[in-house]
């Protein structure tokens, strides 16, 4: 269980981004955080991963206060984070990055293939590639997601996994999230504007103006989110246009 208690954070310039956020996510749940651009979603995710330190408030993982633990220690306790904007590594192959992600567990070729398959990439084509600027934006994004899947930790946070990913790979990704959720029993926090991701959530949380506006089960929240003129709504219109 991950629990956020009264989390606040302001920018160095003093603009309040998160204002007393409270959120509890039981084990095995898939929660989608959505809301307008600049609403503080990435900041909240980074606070959970230990990348950003909150000005006030507490974070508990399975009852343990992890507020003062750094990124490394939280990662070792089972928190994983897929960056919205992945970083590239010159000279490092996809195979190496995935192996580093898995830590001491040695990944077989079959496992690597399986992990990349989740994001619609073919292992034989990608394992030897460098995680450098030679990869396209969509490819690097999918490898970032794969690196978190490779870790297979109890809490996985994905920051806008849909961004830059084509609709074909996206279908695979939805399946992968479902699988982590249903078969592996992992807890997932997905930040997303995508209706299809909202639809697989156990719970949708709306974050705007630094506060958790509303939250509830997907079926109750969907219409509310979609009618609010949100990004998810704009996304749906695009997708309809694409399918036509």
């Amino acid at each position: 269980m991950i629990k956020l208690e009264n989390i606040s954070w302001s920018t160095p310039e003093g603009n309040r981004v998160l204002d007393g956020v409270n959120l509890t996510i039981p084990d095995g749940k898939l929660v989608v955080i959505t809301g307008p651009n600049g609403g503080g979603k990435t900041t909240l995710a980074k606070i959970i991963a230990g990348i950003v330190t909150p000005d006030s408030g507490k974070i508990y993982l399975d009852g343990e206060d992890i507020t003062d633990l750094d990124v490394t220690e939280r990662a070792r306790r089972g928190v994983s984070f897929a960056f919205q904007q992945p970083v590239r590594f010159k000279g490092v192959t996809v195979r190496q990055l995935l192996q580093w992600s898995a830590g001491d567990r040695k990944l077989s070729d079959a496992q690597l293939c399986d992990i990349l398959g989740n994001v619609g990439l073919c292992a034989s084509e990608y394992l030897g590639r460098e995680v450098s600027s030679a990869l396209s934006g969509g490819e690097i994004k999918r490898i970032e997601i794969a690196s978190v899947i490779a870790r297979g930790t109890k809490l996985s946070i994905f920051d806008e996994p849909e961004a830059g990913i084509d609709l074909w790979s996206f279908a695979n990704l939805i399946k992968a999230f479902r699988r982590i959720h249903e078969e592996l029993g992992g807890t997932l926090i997905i930040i997303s504007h995508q209706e299809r991701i909202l639809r697989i959530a156990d719970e949708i949380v709306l974050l705007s103006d630094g506060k958790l506006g509303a939250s509830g089960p997907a079926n109750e929240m969907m219409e509310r989110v979609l009618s609010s003129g949100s990004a998810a709504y704009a996304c749906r219109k695009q997708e309809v246009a694409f399918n036509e």
Partner: protein
Amino acid sequence: MNDITKMLLGQITDFKPDFKGAYNIREDGGCAGRQSSENIKIENKTDKPGIDIRIAAGTVGETVYIPACVTHGDVNDLVYNDFFVGKDADVVIVAGCGVHTSDGHDARHNGIHRFFLEEGSRVKYLEKHIGTGMGSGGRSIDPVTEVFLGKNSVLEMDTEQIGGVDRSVRNTSAVCEEGARLLVRERLLTAKDQFAETNFKVELNGLDSAADIVSRAVARDTSKQVYTSDIVGNAPCSGHSECDAIIADKASVNAAPRLIANHGDAALIHEAAIGKIAGEQILKLRTLGMTEEEAEAKIIEGFLS
């Protein structure tokens, strides 16, 4: 062959004592083992220290080892090795050098290697340099590589110096005739107060000749590195050089690439980037459970791989 040579050989080559092909092991300026094969003949030079390696035309798939080791201080080894690669041969040449001193005295190896590639021949040239031992004695390796590439020949050079060498000046030059190609992949790591200088000079003289030089370097502590490359295009040709450096602590890197086009159809490109390890890279690896130090080591290991 002494034990230090054995240790150094294990680090710079995959040479095995029961190797059936041609080899020459140089130890402290002397010869610690030599063998020729039917197609690859190794002989002493008569006018100066060093050997001539003659690779018969059409030799395909053979490997020749010519590593050099300096195993104690007060050695200043200078050697001239010439490779004559016959028409259409396709071989691997493993050089490499290890310099060891623990007695407080300086140890130096200066290998001057010339390659003469005849038409259509291909060479893969592997060269790994290391310094080992303790004490105040300086370890230097100053390789000179001169390559003459005949029509449609290819030399692929893979060179690395990733630890323990205090001072190094590396000069590589090449002349490419029609359709000839030079590919260089270089990896350099300096730490403490080490110094490494690497200079490339390539003349692309023939129609459709090409050169591709990719050098990656890591400079830490107070070490210093200098990179220069001159690519001269005298014909319709293509040349590319890339110098990428990670700099840490109080190190310094000076990269001076130069392109000289003397022909309207010479296409020459250079890329250079020097910078410290990006904070986001370290952060990403920390989210995988590594400490900051582990992350840095992995990033450097990957960069130099």
